């Protein structure tokens, strides 16, 4: 969930605007290289096309012997990648360096139902480094920590106020330009101009982009984890096309700075003094510019195709679509000022994609910004947290000491300075996976054709392409600036994406351990088969015995059911010619059981001279009605039977059209059919109701049988035979078959009871616990 910086409402991860106040939500992104979708920092897989965003081998922080585990208190920072504790689960990401621990927006909501954490960053109170306070969301700043200003060294780097109007009011002041690229591209926030004051630190001097060509992209409004940090959280996904930066691989966290694969040919490695490994990839190419120029300006020619403006929603700062081929803005703003005003051929090309909804970009040429001189850059003081990241020997000699004790070093005599600072600076630990990306071969000298260069190139060791020559080193792209959109030649159809997602959920789906898997039941053995035959045989014998007229131990006494009297009294109250509606709601299967009550009912109705209409919602019911009307004596003035198709619908429309009945009699052997009639009668005319039901329905319909206009109930064979007996002078002498069937039923009930109790006790004793 993403917390809206403005109103504090919680929103879905994928929301781009706050549901309650509409403010654009700040999110740091990892862009999926396949389908361009921007995913929350912590994602292992892309939300849309489920491409893996975090290389599999980078998921497990390797604790090799060669790297001594950092002693407690040691200030060495191991840059290892966050690992999701269990693939697919959305558990908290682990493995962040301490200083990043509190920043991930993966912090799980507290389990209790209480108000979820006011801010994703603050599941529990985390001590944040000062320098980040200024750029955390409003909530964090206000919730307990005092809102502190941006650290001075960053102040100077913020984008100048004038060029860009910040959309959301940046309470803590505009972010530094080198961070401005980190702002969530989603929001249509026009990037805030980098603040003028304060020279760049030396170590960043090489990164400064010429301010003239590119206006920095959307400023990093306070928001969760900044992009360049998220690079530490999720380095470039494997599937990403390896950027062919020949002059040696950019370190991951700067990978985003490299030009996209298609447009960039690596520039020659810097000749001046040995730069630190993690910076070496970004030192200025030979000949292109002097030291301190933007190191990554490639020489490759511009792509011939028409420039494609970045689509609106990825343009992030949308308002300022980058000119094609311009260096990513957050870095361009750092480059020394002496770069040529026109973007060099083959500069970092950001195609611009036309989209209807995209705001019309303001392409008015920006004023010529003043470029910080090399010394100014050198004197930029290095913050505490950055100094600890500084590998040995990466800075020039100190040209002064800032007010906070920061040492200003010049770019030229880096080696000497390091010697002095050996004691203070702790060697930065470069992770294993970063080491592999260290440039190995020498870049292609000028004038040499590609074929010649490849033939001399050394073979690649290891990996799928081992043994091949002249391969471009994989360049990890941590994040591509918001306004950069790779040209995806092949648009994945939605169906393929949906299928990929389904496969992914299938693979990710943890086996539901809680459910005891239904044990595969083996086909029952001979024992069970015998038990089945025994039970069947017993039932058949006990059933047939009384039917053949043999004597039975007990002749079933006919007791007076409570519902019978009401039934009889209501029918006795009918006047000759009274309109009676009889609903036959049982099928051929239940006909024999219902015959016990339908026969006495028909004789009773005929005796009262009532005009009876027969209806049924069952097709077979109509046929049964004809069976019942075989005897002409029962046929006086009765309507032809009505078939009501459409179940409740048929009942509802029939009841609404025919209001003229005095009594409704429902003969039902299905509980839902009885319920429909009772409900539609309650909704409609509310006629007095008489109900005749089978045993199965009778036991269930008790809750329904206590309604107001219900006058009488007959349940099953026992009430039916009693009604039959009452209609025939009090005894069943005239109906021998019904008497035998009643005795057979009672016999079967007692035998079934014995079998149930005996079977239950037997199974309890043998206690074979199986699942269903």
């Amino acid at each position, binding site marked *: 969930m993403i917390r809206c910086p403005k109103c504090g409402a919680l929103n879905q991860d994928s929301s781009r605007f706050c549901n309650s106040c509409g403010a654009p939500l700040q999110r740091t992104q990892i862009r999926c290289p396949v389908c361009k979708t921007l995913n929350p920092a912590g994602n292992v897989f892309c939300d849309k096309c489920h491409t893996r965003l975090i290389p599999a081998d980078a998921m497990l922080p390797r604790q090799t012997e060669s790297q001594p585990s950092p002693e407690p208190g040691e200030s060495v920072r191991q840059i290892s990648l966050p690992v999701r504790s269990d693939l697919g689960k959305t558990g908290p990401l682990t493995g962040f360096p301490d200083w990043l621990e509190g920043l991930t927006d993966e912090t799980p909501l507290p389990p209790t139902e209480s108000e979820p954490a006011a801010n994703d960053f603050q599941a529990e109170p985390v001590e944040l480094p000062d320098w980040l306070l200024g750029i955390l969301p409003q909530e964090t700043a206000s919730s307990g920590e005092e809102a502190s200003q941006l650290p001075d060294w960053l102040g100077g780097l913020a984008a100048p106020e004038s060029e860009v109007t910040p959309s959301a009011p940046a309470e803590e002041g505009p972010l530094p330009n080198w961070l401005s690229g980190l702002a969530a591209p989603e929001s249509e926030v026009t990037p805030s101009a980098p603040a003028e004051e304060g020279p760049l630190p030396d170590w960043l001097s090489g990164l400064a982009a010429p301010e003239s060509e590119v206006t920095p992209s959307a400023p990093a409004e306070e928001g969760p984890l900044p992009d360049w940090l998220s690079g530490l959280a999720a380095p470039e996904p494997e599937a990403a096309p390896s950027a062919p930066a020949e002059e040696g691989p950019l370190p991951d966290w700067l990978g985003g700075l490299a030009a996209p694969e298609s447009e960039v040919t690596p520039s020659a490695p810097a000749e001046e003094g040995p730069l630190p490994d993690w910076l070496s990839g970004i030192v200025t190419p030979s000949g292109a510019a002097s030291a301190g120029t933007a190191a990554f300006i490639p020489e490759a020619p511009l792509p011939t195709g028409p420039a494609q403006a970045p689509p609106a929603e990825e343009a992030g700062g949308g308002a300022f679509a980058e000119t094609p081929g311009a260096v990513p803005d957050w870095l361009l703003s750092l480059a020394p000022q002496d770069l040529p005003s026109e973007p060099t051929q083959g500069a970092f090309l950001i195609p611009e994609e036309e989209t209807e909804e995209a705001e019309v970009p303001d392409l008015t040429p920006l004023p010529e910004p003043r470029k910080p001189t090399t010394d100014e850059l050198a004197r930029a003081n290095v913050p505490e947290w950055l100094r600890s990241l500084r590998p040995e020997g990466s800075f020039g000699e100190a040209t002064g000491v800032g007010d906070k004790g920061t040492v200003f070093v010049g770019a030229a005599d880096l080696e000497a300075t390091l010697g002095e600072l050996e004691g203070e600076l702790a060697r930065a630990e470069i992770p294993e996976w970063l080491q592999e990306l260290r440039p190995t071969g020498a870049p292609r000298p000028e004038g040499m054709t590609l074929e010649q260069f490849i033939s001399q190139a050394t073979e690649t060791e290891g990996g799928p392409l081992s043994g091949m020559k002249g391969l471009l080193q994989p360049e990890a792209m941590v994040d591509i600036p918001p306004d950069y959109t790779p040209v995806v030649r092949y648009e994945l159809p939605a169906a393929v994406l949906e299928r990929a997602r389904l496969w992914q959920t299938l693979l990710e789906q943890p086996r539901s351990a809680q459910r005891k898997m239904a044990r595969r039941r083996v086909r029952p053995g001979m024992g069970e088969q015998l*038990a*089945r035959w025994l*039970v069947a045989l017993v*039932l058949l014998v006990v059933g047939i015995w009384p039917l053949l007229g043999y004597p039975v131990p*007990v002749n*079933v*006494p006919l*007791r007076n059911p409570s519902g019978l009297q009401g039934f009889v009294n209501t029918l006795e109250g009918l006047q000759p010619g009274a309109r009676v509606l009889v609903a036959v709601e049982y*099928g*051929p*299967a*239940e*006909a*024999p059981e219902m015959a016990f009550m339908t026969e006495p009912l028909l004789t009773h109705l005929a005796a009262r001279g009532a005009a009876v209409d027969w209806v049924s919602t069952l097709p*077979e019911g*109509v*046929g*049964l*009605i*004809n*069976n019942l009307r075989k005897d002409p004596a029962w046929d006086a003035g009765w309507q032809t*039977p009505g078939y009501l*198709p*459409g179940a409740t*619908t*048929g009942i*509802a*429309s029939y009841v*609404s059209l025919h209001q003229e009945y005095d009594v409704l009699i429902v003969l039902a052997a299905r509980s839902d059919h009885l319920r429909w009639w009772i409900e539609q009668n309650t*909704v409609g005319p509310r006629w007095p109701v008489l109900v005749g039901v089978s*045993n199965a329905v009778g*036991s*269930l319909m*008790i*809750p329904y049988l206590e309604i107001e206009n219900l006058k009488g109930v007959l349940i*099953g*064979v*026992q009430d039916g035979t009693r009604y039959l007996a009452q209609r025939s002078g009090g005894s069943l002498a005239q109906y021998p078959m019904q008497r035998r069937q*009643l005795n057979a*039923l*009672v016999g*079967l*009930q*007692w035998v*079934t*009871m014995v*079998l*149930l*109790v005996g*079977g*239950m006790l*037997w*199974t*309890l004793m043998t*206690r*074979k*616990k*199986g*699942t*269903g």
Partner: protein
Amino acid sequence: MKLLKRWGVTFFGILTAVLILLGILMPVTPLKEIRLILLQWAMVIAIFAFFLAFLHLIRVNLARLKQFKKYGVPGLLTVFSALLTLILVFIQGPQGTYSQLLLNAVLIPGEAALMGLTAVTLLLAGIRIARVRPAHEVILFTGVAALMLVGMIPILPVLGTLASWVQKVPAMAGLRGLVLGVALGTLLAGLRFLFGFDRPQSEE
């Protein structure tokens, strides 16, 4: 056009439900008639659905003729008996002699026999209950079922009284709780349809 394709069908489903519901909850003149008309139309459309399902039943059984050895004869019997019955009953109506013959000779005895089979399957399930349920539930269930079996048509009056009380008080409470719970679930599922959250009718 895309909007209509996506929400058009959903809209009609919800409109039909709302109109019929208003016709029941506010039975005033125009709404009552609209409700009746819509209910009858639904009834007629359901008959077309039955016709389509019947054709599918024939098609499935004809498709089974390919594996003649295993399914051939039952498939043929189903197709032949279905078409013959359809023609005879449609022509003669329910009162016709052959309709009566089919009803009394095939449907009533056949379905009654199948219902008779459920007596054995229910009893076997009751006997095996201890394999899937905990002991205290098994004892309670079997005890009450046994009491009801002998109390429904009581030979001993005291069993009848006890069975009647169990049926009228604890069983009533349990079944009423079950039925009311089902009604609550039905209300919410219906509301989700009316709000458009559940859209079984649309192609999405």
